[in-house]
């Protein structure tokens, strides 16, 4: 049975990347994976870097690699504010591999307990999630 649909919008600082009716939004918040269906209770959550899936039907979905952001569900509308949302096949692997490498190097030299260190850890987490998400979503519809 087809699920009822609701509006989902994905906004990044560089513009809107998705705005359509969906059946389910599947993503990950800091507390864990989450799937949002229609008529979800109002929710505000911090998103983690992961693969974002917007199911337009049971089997069809649009997929993005998302970085940190926020998810707001209200009035049967999901609004995702993410810093980056990249289509998996457009993700430049080598670029993120290089940046992951340099973030790791900086981490080595960063002082214990400094903000710089915390930031490197965040960066590493993000790049790793990007690469992982890009691997997982290699073949859509599977």
């Amino acid at each position, binding site marked *: 049975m087809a699920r009822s649909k609701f509006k989902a919008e994905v906004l*990044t*600082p560089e513009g809107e990347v998705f705005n359509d009716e969906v059946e389910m939004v599947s993503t990950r918040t800091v507390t864990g994976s989450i799937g949002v269906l229609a008529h979800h209770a109002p*929710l505000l959550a*911090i998103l983690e870097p992961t693969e974002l899936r917007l199911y337009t039907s049971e089997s069809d979905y649009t997929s993005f690699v998302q970085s940190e952001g926020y998810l707001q569900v209200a009035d049967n509308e999901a609004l995702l504010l993410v*810093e980056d949302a990249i289509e998996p096949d457009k993700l430049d692997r080598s670029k993120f591999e290089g940046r992951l490498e340099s973030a790791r190097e900086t981490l080595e030299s960063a002082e214990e307990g400094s*903000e710089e260190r915390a*930031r490197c850890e965040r960066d590493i987490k993000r790049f790793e999630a990007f690469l992982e998400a890009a691997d997982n979503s290699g073949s859509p519809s599977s």
Partner: protein
Amino acid sequence: MASQRDVKNRISSVKNIQKITSAMEMVAAARLRKAEQRIEELRPYASAIRRMTRRVVEAAEHVPDLPILEEHDSTDKVGLLLVTGDRGLAGAFNSQIIRAGNRRRGELREEGTDVLWYASGRRGVSSIEFRGYGLENGYTGFTDRPAYDDARTIADDLTSAYTDGKLDRVEIIYNGYISPLTQEVRSEVLLPMQQIEFLAEEGDEEGESDGEGKDDGADDPGHHKTLWIYEPDPEEILRRLIPDYVEISIFRALLESTASEHGARMTAMRSASDNASDLIDDLTLEANRVRQAEITQEIMEVVAGAEGLR
């Protein structure tokens, strides 16, 4: 007096320059349109973040004590971020930023504060290095089309320097975009962040978000608190939301600077093309005069020769 050939050479070289400047003008005009669009595209995101923050602040018991909100006890070291372009030939675009930075440096030194330099854009970087001021960090290669990632890198550098006590205040100097013809040098304090920035109700943004914003402020704020699920709790969300403002401010400054750069280049190149055609007119006149003088000269010589034979 210049010979006919000299003048003709000058005319053709001015014509070549004119071709280049008018091509650059057209390229700048096309890029300006794109840059304007990107400023527009940031707006929905920024205002959505703003609305969300306001809601979370209402739900949170108190705004958490974040290092970037705290003012340092004394201001000994100020970070100046100059936003310039990677390329020149854009009128006063780069030089007015560098001049403003220099002026600010003078003011700060009188107060006895050290200045640490940060710059985006090759022009700013090289000018600071040339003056031997010592550059903390330079960011280049993206001013034609800044990505959010670039803003994040800069914001991360500055906030971690601020949090770790390497800087006591951070100011940004950039070209604010008003119209293709006018840009103004803007100087803003980035850190410590002013709470007003994210708590303020922005009149114009409220108006524009009318349709969507109705559920936000219209009904009782206490109402939300009971109904909304926050993951994690509102204070934690604020801890993440507030630093985003620094990123967004920098990103907006980068975008406006890019639009200003293209606007300034377009204007500069247009007046260069105009000047070139004035110059061509003058030179053509000169060429005709030279040619006429040569003809007159020859006639006089012929007449004088005929006189002599008589």
